């Protein structure tokens, strides 16, 4: 292999692979980057066994086709710190020589044949989604996945393909759920559900961001393959039972209120300053024309914030973990959100637009024992 590469483009590609390269020391193979130079230019790949990513690198002249396998942790900083605009990479006896005007590195590689085959986009059942729509959907769901141990299916995001081109993503941990519904061109009429690992879906969103064209994806056995002009992603699906999300979204609520997104975010954030790890609670109290948000921790103090709201029903209250409210308000773009709930013990719904629903289970305050 021999290539002349725009250093910045190549370095950017390597950085993008960084999220997929395993940082562990026990499996050296998964800390390597495969570089394939051929007729179509340069492609670089990395995998941590669960997620695999191949990216095209622009600005590369291939002088001699070939494939090498190099340690990401070495090659990436070398290219990052090289000041030159272009660099030459050439393989020589299992190593790669990286040359720029005033520098020459020889980095030892591994046998490229040992890198696993990441797989191709399946031929049938391909779904096509607009890159902006995909990024929108990913951003609205991944944050709500569960990260601690427990229900393994909740580490992932449920992807539902339905009739009439509907495409839904659902993420949940034990206490909240995020659901977004959009359209994706589905000419084969594929219907079904699968669970994508959180990390895989994040990379899928990034792939949409790197490219300009729609993302095509399909499921083959237990893997999802997604592809666009920027590259290709392969991700293991999670086997497991995702809870029935439709059941936990309340259909009707007694109390319905519209709130300013920014004002609410700011009030919750400020109230949370007096909460502690042990008492992550903010209390919402609605009275005619006003929402009062309070928080209190015995060893810190109290906070009390007021904001005007259009409300004229019976006084009502509900309490939340402030993080669960901040998380969602931080990502919705609309100026207002709709909040609805029935009582202090039942799930509360926050809606932004018609396509996005967020359900959060309240914190139930109980009296200390006597």
């Amino acid at each position, binding site marked *: 292999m021999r290539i002349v590469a725009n250093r910045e483009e190549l370095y950017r590609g390597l950085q993008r692979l960084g999220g997929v390269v395993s*940082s*562990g*020391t*026990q499996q050296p193979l998964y800390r390597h980057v495969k570089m394939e130079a051929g007729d179509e230019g340069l492609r670089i790949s990395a995998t941590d066994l669960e997620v695999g990513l191949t990216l095209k690198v622009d600005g590369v002249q291939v002088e001699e086709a070939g494939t090498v396998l190099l340690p990401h942790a070495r090659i990436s900083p070398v290219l990052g710190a090289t000041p030159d605009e272009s660099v030459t990479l050439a393989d020589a006896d299992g190593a790669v020589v990286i040359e720029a005007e005033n520098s020459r590195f020889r980095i030892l590689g591994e046998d490229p044949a040992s890198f696993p085959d990441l797989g191709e986009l399946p031929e049938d059942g391909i779904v096509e989604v607009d890159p902006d729509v995909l990024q929108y959907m990913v951003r609205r769901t991944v944050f709500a996945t569960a990260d601690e*141990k*427990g229900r393994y299916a909740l580490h992932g995001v449920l992807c539902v393909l339905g009739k009439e081109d509907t495409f839904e993503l659902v993420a*949940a941990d*034990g*206490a*909240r*759920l995020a659901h977004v519904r959009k359209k994706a061109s589905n000419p084969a009429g594929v219907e079904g559900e699968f669970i994508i690992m959180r990390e895989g879906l994040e990379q899928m969103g990034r792939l949409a961001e790197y490219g300009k064209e729609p993302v095509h994806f399909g499921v083959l056995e237990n893997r999802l393959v997604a592809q666009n002009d920027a590259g290709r992603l392969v991700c293991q699906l999670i086997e497991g039972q995702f*809870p029935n999300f439709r059941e*936990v979204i309340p259909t009707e609520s007694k109390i319905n209120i519209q709130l300013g997104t920014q004002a609410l975010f700011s009030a919750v954030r400020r109230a949370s300053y007096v909460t502690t790890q*042990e*008492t992550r*609670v903010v209390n919402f109290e609605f009275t005619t024309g006003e929402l009062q948000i309070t928080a*209190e*921790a*015995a060893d810190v103090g109290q906070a009390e914030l007021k904001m005007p709201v259009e409300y004229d029903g019976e006084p009502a209250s509900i*309490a939340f*973990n402030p993080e669960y409210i901040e998380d969602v308000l931080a990502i919705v773009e609309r100026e207002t959100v709709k909040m609805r709930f029935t009582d202090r*013990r039942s*799930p509360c719904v926050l809606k932004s637009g018609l396509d996005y629903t967020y*359900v959060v*289970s*309240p*914190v*139930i*305050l*109980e*009296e*200390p*024992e006597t």
Partner: protein
Amino acid sequence: MAEERVIIHVDMDAFFAAIEQRDNPPLRGRPVVVGADPQGGKGRGVVSTCSYEAREYGIHSAQPISRAYRLCPDAVFLPVDGEKYGRESRRIRHIFREFTPQVQPISIDEAFLDVTGSLRLFGGKRALARKLQRRIEQETHLTASLGVAPCKLVAKIASDLEKPRGLVIVEPEEIEAFLRPLPVKVLPGVGPRMRQSLARLGIRTIAHLADYPRESLRERFGDHGENLWSKAHGIDESPVATGGEAKSIGHEHTFGTDTDNWPEVRATLMWLCEKTARRLRKAEKRGFTVTTKIRFEDFTTLTRQQTLEFPVREATEIYAAAVRNLQEGYEAGRKLRLIGVTVSGLIGAREWKPKGRQSSLFEHAPAEASDDIHRRIARAEDAVKDRFGEDALRRGASYSPQRRAENKREEP
């Protein structure tokens, strides 16, 4: 640097068996096994302790009693006399307090002593340790093995090396040299499973572990991996905790026959949770961590635990966590021999001032208007049991015809 500590780990030699031999001279010099009833080789419990004579036949503690019986049918098999051993244990603790007020009993026959403050009085650590060993022997006619080191971890390992009547002193500068040649299994937290996982990485001795990159251990095993690495370097700053109160409360049960009958397992688990909950209430405690112990028919044993956001106390709360643990650890197709439940991370029930509990989207039980109901049920349960005994009342969910048929055999 902090003042160098001197910690002694005292471990009584073959404690239960030694007491029996002391009190019954014809047993001296004979293999004595204290534990479950061997029932002519059909018994199902385990060996609690055995005398050194019995160890020559390959018998050891935690071994199935049936196997011990096969190894030496002529041994004297005795039941566990908890009350008697408890009495001896208290006598020995009194002796400890002649040497230091900082005593942490860790079981009926083991304790840590921080003697840093008493060294001058007794003329140094060796003199103090010898004197302590002699005092125990004179007073109780039982022998103890001692490990002396700057931390609990090393002291505990040291006490085990020259049993019986051992005294091993590890100076601060000798810690690494002392630990390195030992197999990893001597470290607390390295059970058979962990040992296998480590062996796969080529880690067999503490030296291997100490030289392994800390980050890699962390990646592979999480915090536990990092802790092990610290232990391999002899780093252990945990203090000798003198509270003396129970650290955990729990119960376990050996099934009459190995079972994969899920309703029976669930019912038994609920029954253990009820018993545990009742003891928690009596002790006025709540606990943050619920641990479930699972032993399969081939005696492989594992534990699964979870730490909760709020400290539990009621049977149903403990059960909810315990059953999740069980599901996580259970391997389909294998029969269970024993299950156990422990609640740890205890705090006084009155110390816990609840500020609210995050309700769950998918599991509605705790979110329903039921907290008060559970509390009232528990109160009623206590009232009935206090008056009519532990078997007077139970939840339908903990009723198991199998267990009833076995007539409630439990491991000690």
